[in-house]
């Protein structure tokens, strides 16, 4: 019987009795009541005394000119990770395009990012320091020479020059500077030339056509006189039929 009672008591939840102290919705902060004399004395006694650290210092010690407010990072592990990622992007993409960026709202930047992402291209800006960390000592070191002012980089794992140019035409704030095409540094003009080259099948068909043209020209020249004669005879036959 007592065991059952004890178990029932343990199962019961203890509800504490709550009485709210602040009954008003607005709390008085601006005009607090003056404390009682005893409390006021206590507060006056226990008020903390902060000594002025600049009390006995000479003006020369107080001068803040030439003071560096922040320390330059000697080694930032996160920056090293980003630099490693950047180098991998450089090594894995067949086409890397560098843009100069004029003032562009974040909305426009995001739209550009989204459009490039649809073409499976990576549109990103990196800091000069991160780029230096990533590319120093690699064959891509010459990128640092023109990575000045505001920039944007687009990494493309495939050689889709036309699609890239189509997307970048929508954003006049992005000015194409140079590119890396299959590990080779090319200028803007050369990139435009590459964009005019059709795909492999079309190029092969064009080559076959050029090779065939010699033979077909020769046949045409040989048969030309006979064809003219045949044509004239046909015309004469028609004239006779009409008569």
């Amino acid at each position, binding site marked *: 019987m007592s065991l059952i009672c004890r178990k029932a008591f343990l199962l019961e939840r203890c509800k504490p009795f709550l009485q709210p102290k602040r009954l008003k919705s607005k709390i008085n902060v601006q005009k607090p009541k003056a404390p009682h004399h005893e409390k006021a004395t206590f507060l006056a006694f226990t008020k903390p005394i902060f000594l002025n650290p600049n009390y006995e210092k000479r003006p020369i010690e107080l001068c803040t000119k030439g003071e560096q407010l922040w320390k330059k990072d000697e080694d930032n592990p996160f920056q090293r990770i980003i630099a490693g990622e950047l180098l991998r992007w450089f090594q894995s993409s067949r086409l890397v395009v*560098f843009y*100069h*960026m*004029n*003032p562009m709202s974040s909305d426009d930047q995001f739209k550009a990012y989204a459009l490039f992402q649809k073409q499976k291209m990576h549109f990103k800006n990196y800091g000069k320091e991160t780029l230096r960390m990533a590319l120093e000592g690699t064959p891509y070191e010459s990128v640092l*020479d*023109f990575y*000045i*002012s*505001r920039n944007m980089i687009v990494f493309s794992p495939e050689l889709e020059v036309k699609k890239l140019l189509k997307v970048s035409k929508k954003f006049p*704030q992005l*000015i*194409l*500077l*140079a590119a890396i095409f299959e590990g080779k540094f090319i*200028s*803007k*003009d050369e990139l435009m030339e590459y964009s005019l080259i059709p795909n492999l099948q079309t190029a092969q068909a064009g080559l076959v056509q050029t090779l065939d043209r010699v033979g077909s020209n020769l046949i045409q020249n040989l048969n030309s006189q006979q064809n003219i004669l045949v044509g004239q005879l046909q015309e004469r036959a028609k004239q006779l039929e009409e008569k």
Partner: protein
Amino acid sequence: MSIYYSGTFKRSAGLISAIVKQLDLVNLKPVKKIQVQFDPFHPQAETVRDFLFHITGPKVAATNLKCAIKTNIVCDRSDPFIKVDLAESGNSVRLLATNLTVLEILQQFNKHISSLVKPDETVGTNIVQTKSEKKKARRK
């Protein structure tokens, strides 16, 4: 012994404050077209690129929406320059940016081009009436 504080209460941020001050004075109203040409691999292309960045900003562009800014990228290691075609006179101003800093370019731009704007035009665009001024005008 101690002297009272003298000097400015606000401190300038250095070079960028000077550039911003010049940019506030830039007015593209007399300009028809700006042509910026540079080679990205040229050692002194930075100033032109910075100038291009500043001039295409929304505030400067708002002074004249019809002004076209054209960028020419070349790869013959030629010196960078900025060519400004004026609307009224048809003349063009050429700034050779090889040995100039951004601040100097903007100063020269303001001296020769922004100064061509008549003062009446600038006053007209900058009036912003406050609420109390509008009330007073209504009462009168």
